[in-house]
């Protein structure tokens, strides 16, 4: 079963989290990326995420499997939204369970960084001025 998912509908973090918890878990780290009302000094009205679905699912699953191999964690999941999102909606969620917090934090950070850097998903922002733009950053922050 894959640990990475693309979702066309809002992400239910409570259910995702519940899937990661069991009696061995001592630390659970999670990260959520939300649609901000501004980016690079411009007012953002909303955005759209587009993915190359087949490759995004394969590359996302690879990132999650790497995290499970590199860090002493029990399990991990990541979900990324695609389609239209409004300000304040959740764009991406990462959850990691581990016996100890060091590994949970490290794996959570690894997953969000690698997903942002490698998984073929693109953000299209609509601005208050009426224009819109595909984001193709030179390098990932």
């Amino acid at each position, binding site marked *: 079963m894959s640990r990475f998912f693309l979702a066309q509908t809002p992400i239910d973090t409570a259910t995702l989290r519940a899937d990661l918890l069991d009696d061995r878990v001592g630390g659970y780290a999670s990260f959520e990326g939300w649609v901000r009302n501004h980016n690079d000094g411009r007012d953002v009205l909303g955005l759209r995420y587009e993915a190359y679905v087949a*490759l995004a699912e394969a590359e996302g699953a690879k990132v999650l499997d790497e995290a499970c191999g590199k860090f002493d964690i029990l399990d991990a999941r990541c979900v990324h939204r695609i389609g239209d999102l409004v300000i304040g909606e959740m764009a991406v969620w990462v959850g990691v369970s581990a016996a100890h917090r060091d590994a949970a934090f490290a794996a959570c950070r690894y997953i969000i960084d690698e997903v942002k850097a490698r998984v073929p998903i693109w953000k299209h922002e609509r601005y208050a001025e009426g224009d819109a733009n595909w984001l193709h950053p030179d390098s990932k922050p």
Partner: protein
Amino acid sequence: MAQVTVLYFASLRDAAGTASETVECDGDLRALYSMLRERHGFALPVERLRVAVDGAFARWNDEVRAGSEIAFIPPVSGG
């Protein structure tokens, strides 16, 4: 000449005016992108893209295989 399907995403799709097209070409994937960049006026140089064949990342100097599905991957911006 090899006939392939090319997929476009994000700004490449906007510039091409289509999400996919069938093209005929010779040579490697780099040559294919050069040809299509000239045809569609893509702003992004090959150095800023990755390329995938049949759903897996590939190398620019791989030969184009007839019947394959080729995707040019602009810099990603998920998250």
